[in-house]
């Protein structure tokens, strides 16, 4: 059996259509909750999340992948409530850790075997003490690629191989090292998504082609970000479009994913709601069409590719 884990339970892969593959509802480094300056009104926060996701749905969006992983303000109550409140909107949550500073002290003393069991458990039994299952493994590496991050990567690869879930990885400074570790652990490239390839200062068309040709997915998931002193990775959509058109010309449409990496509620030193997931469909989709990208290709990027990433093929172990 093949299925996709949403926060409301497994669905058949064909139920999934237009997808934003890398988003955040709540996002913050562990510890924000001890800092009253970052406390927020839960009702207002839920309303913000609801409005953003509903807006996305009204534009034709149907699946929202929350990539925060463990101990980075993952809030299952909000995810479940959102998914139950918006009809035919699938919310997919993630297990994993986004990077060294996202790993709370309790987990910093654990080893790869522990992380592997943790990720497997969150995909097959439920996240934390709940029965809500994760749909993907979202991990990240800092520019130093610490030993702890390497442990998490090895564990993620093993958990992905055991469960059939995909790995979404971020950290543009160390992509090839990440890929190598995941492959070393036996994870098939077709189960790997490399995120944030459209980070200002770190774009590289040839690199992206090379990654796609290994069979991995390449994600342009900072759509709608502006380059400001406070968002150094933001870049204009027209530059992003050029990259994507080049990759389409090279015949790599089966490996491209699109998303916005928006945050409805930032609980750290960033800002909330700077841009919204709707930007993908409201502004970027018309841009693709205007550039001559046909509907079949758009369907590949927004529906088929994410569906293939999210689909879990039932394994025996």
């Amino acid at each position, binding site marked *: 059996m093949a299925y996709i884990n949403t926060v409301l339970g497994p669905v058949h892969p064909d139920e999934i259509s237009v997808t934003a593959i890398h988003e955040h509802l709540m996002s913050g480094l562990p*510890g924000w*909750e001890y*800092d009253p300056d970052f406390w927020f009104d839960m009702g207002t926060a839920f309303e913000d999340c609801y409005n953003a996701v509903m807006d996305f749905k009204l534009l034709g969006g149907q699946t929202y992948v929350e990539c925060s992983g463990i101990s980075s303000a993952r809030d299952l109550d909000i995810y479940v409530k959102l998914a139950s409140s918006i009809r035919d909107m699938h919310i997919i949550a993630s297990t994993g850790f986004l990077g060294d500073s996202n*790993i709370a*002290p*309790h987990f910093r003393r654990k080893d790869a075997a522990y992380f592997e069991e943790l990720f497997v458990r969150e995909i097959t039994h439920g996240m934390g003490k709940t029965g809500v299952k994760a749909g993907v493994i979202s991990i990240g590496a800092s520019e130093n690629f610490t030993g702890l991050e390497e442990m998490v990567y090895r564990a993620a690869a093993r958990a992905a191989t055991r469960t059939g879930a995909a790995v979404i990885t971020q950290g543009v400074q160390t992509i090839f090292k990440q890929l190598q570790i995941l492959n070393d652990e036996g994870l098939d490239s077709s189960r790997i998504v490399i995120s944030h390839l459209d980070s200002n200062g770190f774009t590289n068309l040839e690199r992206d082609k090379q990654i796609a040709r290994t069979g991995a997915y390449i994600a342009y998931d900072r759509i709608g970000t502006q380059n400001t002193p406070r968002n150094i990775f933001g870049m204009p959509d027209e530059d992003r479009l050029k990259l994507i058109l080049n990759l389409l010309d090279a015949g790599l449409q089966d490996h491209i994913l699109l998303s916005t990496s928006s945050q409805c509620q930032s609980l750290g*030193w*960033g800002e909330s709601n700077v841009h919204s997931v709707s930007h993908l469909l409201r502004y970027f989709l018309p841009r693709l069409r205007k550039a001559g990208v046909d509907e079949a290709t758009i369907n590949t990027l927004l529906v088929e590719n994410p569906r293939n990433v999210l689909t879990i093929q039932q394994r025996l172990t």
Partner: protein
Amino acid sequence: MVMTVKGEMRPEELGWAALFEHILFAFPGWENDPWVDFNRAQVTESAVASLREFKNAGGGTIVDFNGTLLGRDAELLANISSLADVNIIATTGFSGQDFTPGHFLFPGATRRRDILDQQAGITYEVQRLDADYLAKIFYEELTLGMVGPGMMRTSFKAGVVKTGANWDRVTEADEIAIRGAARAAKKAGVAVLTTGISQAQRQWEILLEEGIKPDRIVIGRCDDGRAIDLERDKEFARKGAFVSYNHIGWEDTSLPYCIPDERRAELVKTMIKNGFAENIILSCDAVCCAISIPQPKHSYSHLLKSFVPRLKKLRIKDSVIDTILRENPKRVLGGK
């Protein structure tokens, strides 16, 4: 006056006090570990039983030395304190970078904070993660109430401040936390308890720079097996600080930080013989519910039921023991 979780008390009312104890002990993030089996009812019951035993042995007060981050639960502390009729003083402050979550690890991190300006519409200010930022957090825990889960400030206030550092060095993140703690302590007039003995000297320097008086400083963990140094302890005592042997009962010498109580008692005796009885603090770092570390076997009463008799066997007089357990905590926590 000293702030306990039950409210303000006169220092004379504290009785025999153990300044480095823990009800819960857990590193941030433990709530996300599905294999942690935390049973609040069971923890309450066993903590109350252990504290009653401590009280029956003559104890009056413990300091829950968790600080803001290490599994402190203000409501649980207040409940346990009432049920056991033992005073509990809670702590604010951090314990060193290794125990601090990512949100507080980037000194200088800025945040734009929108504020309403009546003339010009929305304007903003830039906030920075620095010592003053942390001082505000700690000061509010001392004067308004400790932060609790669910983005809520409890009505229970912390009564002392703790500082700590990584084992190998005082990192930049540690330094802002130490300075922040010092500023909060100075403003609120409370004592500072340190941990991380390997970096005690640097912490001490920072505390003095921030204007903390030596007689409001307790240098913690002087009996850490990795860094025993009586000359250092005498020097701190000579300058008027308190030196704390607070790992009593941690005797499993397969762990590098543990030493036998026998040796610990000799250290204490030597300090007393050198005339520093009025600068000694004793505690046993017991943990009722250890979540992120192995559960120690001894409990709060070990100090009074096992270690004090050991000191008596070494011919330490009752009056000296009373000074160490009652008068010293009274002076450092009460300030004079």
